[in-house]
C-alpha cells in the first residue's frame, strides 16, 4: 500500500512579500532605494574614495576649478588622465587664474597609497584613485575643484556626506524614542497625563520652527569639539521633531487600546510598559518605518540649513550644509560656481528619500487599491 504524499498547501505569499512586490512596481521608489544605498556606501567608504584628506590644504591651488578627465592626448587615445595646471593672469582683470597645462598629461592611477585615514578603526593609506604628485609635488586631481584654502572639494563632499546622512538617522532614532514614549503614555493612560502631554505638544508645535532651531543651536558652546557639536545639533533637531509624531502615535494607541489582544495582555498581568512596547508598538511598525523615511529629509535639510547659517556643524568636521556655506557669499558664488556641487548631493539624497518613502507608503497601503 502506498501512501499518497499530503497535498502541498498552495503557497500564499506573506504580507511582507506582497508589500515588496507592490514596492517593486514603483520605478521611482526602486531608483530612490538604489540611490540611497549608493550614497550611504559612498559615505561609509568616504576616506577610501576620496583622493585627499579633508583638511589638507594645497597651497597655490586655491579656488581651482574642477579638472576635466581626458582620454585623448594629442589625437591619440590614452588611459584616463588630467592636465596639471599653471597659474596665469587674466589679461583684462589681472586676477589670478589657473590655466590647464596641456603639454604634460597626468595619468590617473587606481589603488594608490596616499594620505592616511581611518576606516572602521583601521588606519590605512589606500585610496581608490589618485595621481602621482610629480617631482615638484604640484600635480593633483581635483574632480570638484578646491575651496578657498585649496582643499579638495570632492573629498570634502564625500566625507561631509557621513555627517549629513547620519544626522537624519540618529535624529530620527532620538525623536522617535521620545515621540513613541510620549505618544504611547498619552494615548495609553489618557486623563491628566494625556492632557498635560497634549498641551506640551501644542506649545511645541506653535513654535516657529526655524527661529527656535536657530535659538537652540546658539546654546551649543563654540568651545566644544566638533563631535559634541554634531551630537548637539542632532539633539536640537530631535527636540523639535518629536511632537508631531507623538500626536499621531497617541491616536494609534488610543484605537489599539480597544483591541482584544491588548485586553488579553492586560488580563494576564503584563506591565503597562510591556503592553505598549510588545503589543501595541509592533502593530505600528510599518507606519513608523514609513513616517521615519518620510521625515528623514527634514532632518537632513534642517542640519544643512543650520550649518549653512554657521550655527551647525563646525570645522574640522564638515557636512554638505557647511560646504555650501563657503558658497553662501553672493560674490563667491558668482565667481566659483563649483562650490555649489555639494548641494547636488544634498538634493539627490533628499529626492531619493522622498521617492523611496512615497513608494514604501504606497506599498504598505492595502486599502486604496
Amino acid at each position, binding site marked *: 500500500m502506498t501512501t499518497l504524499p499530503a497535498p502541498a498547501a498552495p503557497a500564499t505569499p506573506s504580507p511582507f512579500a506582497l508589500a515588496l512586490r507592490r514596492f517593486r512596481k514603483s520605478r521611482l521608489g526602486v531608483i530612490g532605494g538604489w540611490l540611497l544605498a549608493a550614497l550611504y556606501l559612498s559615505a561609509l567608504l568616504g576616506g577610501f574614495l576620496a583622493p585627499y584628506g579633508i583638511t589638507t590644504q594645497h597651497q597655490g591651488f586655491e579656488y581651482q576649478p574642477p579638472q576635466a578627465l581626458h582620454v585623448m592626448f594629442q589625437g591619440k587615445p590614452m588611459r584616463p588622465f588630467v592636465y596639471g595646471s599653471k597659474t596665469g593672469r587674466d589679461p583684462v582683470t589681472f586676477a589670478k587664474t589657473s590655466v590647464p597645462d596641456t603639454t604634460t598629461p597626468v595619468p590617473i592611477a587606481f589603488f594608490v597609497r596616499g594620505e592616511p585615514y581611518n576606516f572602521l578603526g583601521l588606519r590605512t593609506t589606500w585610496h581608490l584613485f589618485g595621481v602621482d604628485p610629480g617631482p615638484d609635488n604640484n600635480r593633483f586631481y581635483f574632480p570638484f575643484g578646491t575651496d578657498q584654502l585649496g582643499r579638495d572639494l570632492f573629498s570634502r563632499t564625500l566625507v561631509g556626506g557621513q555627517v549629513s546622512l547620519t544626522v537624519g538617522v540618529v535624529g530620527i532614532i532620538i525623536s522617535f524614542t521620545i515621540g513613541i514614549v510620549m505618544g504611547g503614555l498619552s494615548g495609553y493612560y489618557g486623563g491628566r497625563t494625556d492632557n498635560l502631554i497634549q498641551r506640551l505638544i501644542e506649545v511645541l508645535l506653535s513654535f516657529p520652527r526655524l527661529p527656535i532651531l536657530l535659538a537652540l543651536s546658539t546654546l551649543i558652546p*563654540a568651545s566644544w569639539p566638533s563631535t559634541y557639536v554634531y551630537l548637539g545639533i542632532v539633539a536640537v533637531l530631535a527636540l523639535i521633531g518629536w511632537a508631531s509624531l507623538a500626536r499621531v502615535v497617541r491616536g494609534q494607541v488610543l484605537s489599539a487600546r480597544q483591541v482584544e489582544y491588548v485586553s488579553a495582555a492586560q488580563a494576564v498581568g503584563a506591565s503597562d510598559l510591556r503592553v505598549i512596547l510588545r503589543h501595541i508598538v509592533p502593530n505600528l511598525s510599518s507606519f513608523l518605518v514609513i513616517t521615519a523615511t518620510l521625515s528623514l529629509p527634514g532632518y537632513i535639510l534642517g542640519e544643512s540649513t543650520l550649518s549653512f547659517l554657521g550655527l551647525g556643524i563646525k570645522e574640522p568636521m564638515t557636512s554638505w550644509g557647511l560646504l555650501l556655506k563657503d558658497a553662501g557669499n553672493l560674490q563667491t558664488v558668482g565667481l566659483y560656481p563649483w562650490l555649489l556641487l555639494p548641494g547636488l548631493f544634498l538634493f539627490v539624497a533628499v529626492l531619493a528619500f522622498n521617492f523611496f518613502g512615497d513608494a514604501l507608503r504606497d506599498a504598505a497601503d492595502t486599502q486604496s487599491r
Partner: protein
Amino acid sequence: MLTYTLRRILGMLPTLLIISAVCFTVIKLQPGSFTDQYLEDPRFTKETVAAITRQLGLDQPAIVQYGRWLWGVVTRLDFGFSFASNAPVITQIGERLGWTVFVALLTLLLSWLVAVPLGIYTAFNRNGLAASVANFLGYVGLAIPDFLVALLLVSLTLRLGSSNVGGLFSPAMIDAPWSWARVGDLLAHLWIPVLAVGLEGVAGLMRQMRASMLDVLSQDYVRTARAKGAAQQTVIWRHAVRNAINPLISLAGLSLPTLISGTIVISIVMNLPTIGPLLYESLLNKDQYTALTLLMLSAVLLLIGNLLADLALAWADPRVRYS
C-alpha cells in the same frame, strides 16, 4: 463668528506667554552674555563693564529681567531695549516687519497663482508629458533646500551679466521716491527670494490640489453635473474646483511656518531688510530683548496666520461653522 475670533485670540495669550518664557529661558541659557565682548577690550576696565551690565539690567536675576520685559510689553507695549543698536527694539523692527509680511504674502499669493492651475491641469492630464514634468518639478521643489535655490539663481543671474542680486533696491534707487521705475527695480531684486521661498510651497500645494481634485472628480455631484448637461467649464470651476480648494485653505495655514522660515533664511542669504538677519545677529550677539521680541513676532505671525486660514475656510466652505 466674531465671538469665535475673539475667543481664538484670547486663547493665543497663554500660548504666547509660555512661548515667551521658553524663548527667554533658551536665550538666557546661551553661554556668555552681551557684555562679555567688552571684557576683552583693553579700553574697558572691569568697573566700566560692571557699570554697563548694571545699566542694561543684566546684573538682575533672569526672572526679574523677564518680569520687567513682560510688564513693559503688557503695560506700555515696550518691547525692551536693543543693546547692540542702542535703540528701543520696536524702532528696530518696525520697517523690517512690514517687509517680512510683504515678502511672505507676495510669495504666498504667487505660489497659489501658480500651484492651483498646475494642480488642476495635472489632475486632468495625468499621463501627459507636461504633467510628468510638473510632477517631477514638484519632487524637485520639495527636495531642494530654499537657500540652495537662491544660490543657484544668484549664480545664474551673475553669469548672465545682471547685478540685481542682494538687497531690495539698486544703490541708485534706495533713497528715490516711489515711482514705476522703483517698483520695477524692486521686482527685479525680489524675484529670486520669492522664487526661492515659494518653490517648496508650490510643490506641496500642487500635489495637494491634484490629490483633492482627483478625489472630487469621482464624486457623485460631479457626475450629476455632467449628466444634467452643464458645460465642462462650469463643471470644473463651479463644482469641482470650488470643493477641491477647501483642503488647500487649511494647508495654507500649515504652510506658514515654512514660509516664515524660508523668508528668514533667504533674507540672511540675500541680505533683505526683513526680520531674518536681525534675528540671526541678535541671537549671535546675545542681544536678548531683540531676539526675544523677534521670536515672539514669528510665533504671533504663525498663530495669526493659522487663525486667518481657519476663518478663510469658514468663509469659503459653508459647511464649516465655528460657534
